[in-house]
């Protein structure tokens, strides 16, 4: 029997479906992951429970006051939150900033440059100015890296997806060049990385390895939420994203907004790079560019570009990443399982989203006849 799928527009968006789609997407992605795990000869159930325990810990550990797993998840959630906010504000106006990874790296590079060289160059500076200076350097470097594609898009109409992406590779290679080459620690036994920063340039830690960057993330979420919902600028950004033609007729300067938004977006990503080097690694080394900027794209999209949604989704995807690392350590399974699951969740969400706006009907019989019947009816 032949049949075809037909989409009918709903009169209003279904709230029930809007809730069911993310949940269903997660479940469907887990089922896909289970099939994949089974295919490579791993036990899906044991793998998933190891991931959950790796990301959140076990009640037995909590009883002993051991919250290591949970704090590690928060450590990874921090850059995901900041970068997720960074890309979501750009996505709001349909500027596809795929370059958060490179902007993060440049932020880390600039903050690292301040921490490595300024104490020797300006020993008279009071110690408390270093962290704010590093944050400022990180923000400006990330913003500069974001503004390049912004300017190119605004004034030459160059496709920003390609430029932001290419700048990622350049930033990563630049940082590698520094810590493998001229900035390599001479006392590092050949280990690729710079010397450790002075302790007064380290971000204070809150608990475990969780550092002040988490506070930056929450403040950034409040800031983005305020900008979007309470300011004229936020209104312009939303209008450009929803209807660029109307925005132009309303006299909104789209080119200027692109540049400003990319300053903010790149600046935030740069700040997260600063937080990573000043809060976690305390030196420039391999492991700064581990894909937070790319995962942030998924975070932003799953959160439907809502700042508070970003905070929540970043935490959940961080749990997935930490769980992925855990199965690599304890079960010898590739940590890439986490990114496979992320991709699968995003696919399911994308497919499911349509159901909030349309009703899916299975039409039996000849499609042509059905179309005719629909027209007559």
């Amino acid at each position: 029997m032949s049949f075809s799928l037909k989409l009918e527009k709903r009169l209003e968006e279904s709230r029930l479906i809007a809730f069911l789609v993310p949940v269903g997407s997660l479940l469907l992605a887990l089922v896909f992951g289970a099939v994949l795990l089974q295919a490579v000869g791993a036990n899906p159930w044991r793998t998933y429970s190891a991931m959950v325990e790796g990301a959140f810990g076990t009640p037995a550990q909590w009883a002993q006051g051991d919250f290591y797993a949970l704090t590690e998840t928060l450590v990874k959630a921090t850059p995901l939150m900041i970068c997720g906010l960074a890309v979501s504000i750009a996505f709001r106006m349909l500027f596809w900033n795929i370059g958060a990874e490179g902007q993060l790296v440049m932020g880390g590079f600039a903050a690292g440059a301040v921490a490595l060289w300024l104490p020797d160059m300006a020993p008279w500076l009071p110690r408390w100015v270093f962290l704010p200076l590093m944050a400022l350097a990180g923000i400006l470097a990330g913003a500069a890296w974001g503004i390049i594609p912004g300017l190119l898009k605004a004034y030459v109409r160059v496709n920003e997806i390609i430029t932001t992406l290419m700048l990622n590779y350049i930033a990563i290679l630049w940082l590698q060049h520094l810590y493998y080459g001229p900035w390599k620690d001479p006392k590092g036994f050949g280990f690729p990385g710079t010397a450790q920063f002075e302790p007064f340039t380290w971000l204070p830690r809150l608990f475990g390895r969780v550092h002040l960057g988490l506070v930056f993330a929450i403040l950034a979420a409040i800031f983005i939420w305020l900008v979007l919902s309470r300011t004229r600028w936020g209104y312009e950004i939303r209008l450009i994203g929803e209807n660029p033609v109307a925005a132009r007729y309303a006299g909104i300067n789209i080119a200027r907004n692109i540049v400003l938004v990319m300053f903010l977006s790149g600046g935030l990503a740069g700040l997260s790079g600063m937080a990573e080097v000043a809060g976690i690694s305390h030196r420039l080394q391999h492991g700064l560019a581990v894909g937070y900027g790319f995962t942030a794209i998924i975070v932003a999209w799953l959160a439907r570009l809502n700042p508070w949604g970003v905070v929540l989704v970043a935490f959940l995807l961080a749990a997935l990443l930490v769980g992925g690392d855990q199965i690599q350590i304890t079960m010898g399974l590739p940590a890439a399982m986490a990114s496979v699951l992320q991709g699968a969740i995003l696919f399911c969400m994308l497919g499911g989203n349509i159901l909030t706006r349309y009703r899916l009907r299975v039409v039996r019989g000849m499609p042509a006849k059905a179309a005719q019947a629909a027209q007559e009816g």
Partner: protein
Amino acid sequence: MDVALFISILTITIRAGTSLLYATVGEILTERSGILNLGVEGMMIMGAVSAFAAAFHTGSVWMGVVTAIVVGGMLALIHAFLTITLRADQVVSGLALTIFGSGLASFLGQRLGPEGQPLVGQVGPRFEKIALPVLSDIPLFGDAVFRQDVLVYGMYLLVPLAWFILYKTRPGLHLRAVGESPHTADAMGVNVPGLRYFYTILGGMLVGLGGAHLSLAYTPGWTENLTSGRGWIAIALVIFATWDPARAVIGALLFGGVNAIQFRLQAAGTTIPAAFLNMLPYAFTIIVLVLITWWEAFRKRIGAPAALGIPYMREEVT
């Protein structure tokens, strides 16, 4: 410049350009139908890992090629289903495909070696160079152009064929119509969703084949991040080529040339740090893209298919 150096640079240029050109022509066909598939990087890296894994276990490079084509097509089918049937956002779906493909390729690369071991570092079958009789004896460029692997020769056939079909045949006219004005095409009796499915999958197959050329001929074997952004460069080349397979050749040669110069300088022991040489293709992509965008705007031409990225709904006439 001495002849030997010229020949060696041209040889590497063509070899490096081949995988790019497969991917570029594939994406041109997809985008001509109005579907933007940003999953090229993901499909290409999956093509590369699956081609090498299949060739490694069966001992046949051709099994590798077939596997890569099937895998590329299947990944493109996901994108087609999401964007054509379910009308999902094409940009996000393509990005998801790249993230998914890169993750899956890394996962499989660590498990598909002998007895569940990683594939990294394994030596498998590869395409050998074959010198075409007579043609490879042409002075100067004969040796570089006609002493290559079979997939390079396949590319020599594919590009003129794609160009001919696109511009000189009825199916090509339908393809262009679907990308430029789907409502008109629909009224002409062309099956818009059907053609979009067909060319999205065909494009994915070609991208997968480009990946196979990487892991079976250009740099035989599997390493993490083998494609290292080539899929994205291919998308930039589509814009550079203004959606014309013939012009894509120039772009692929340019980028292959950058690769070749990078290779030669490294081999010659230059004092330029390796990182800067490795940046060349990416910086070059940005520069080329800026120049071509500026030039096309100057000439007031819009190269992109008019309906690119817009879902087609028969009920909603725009």
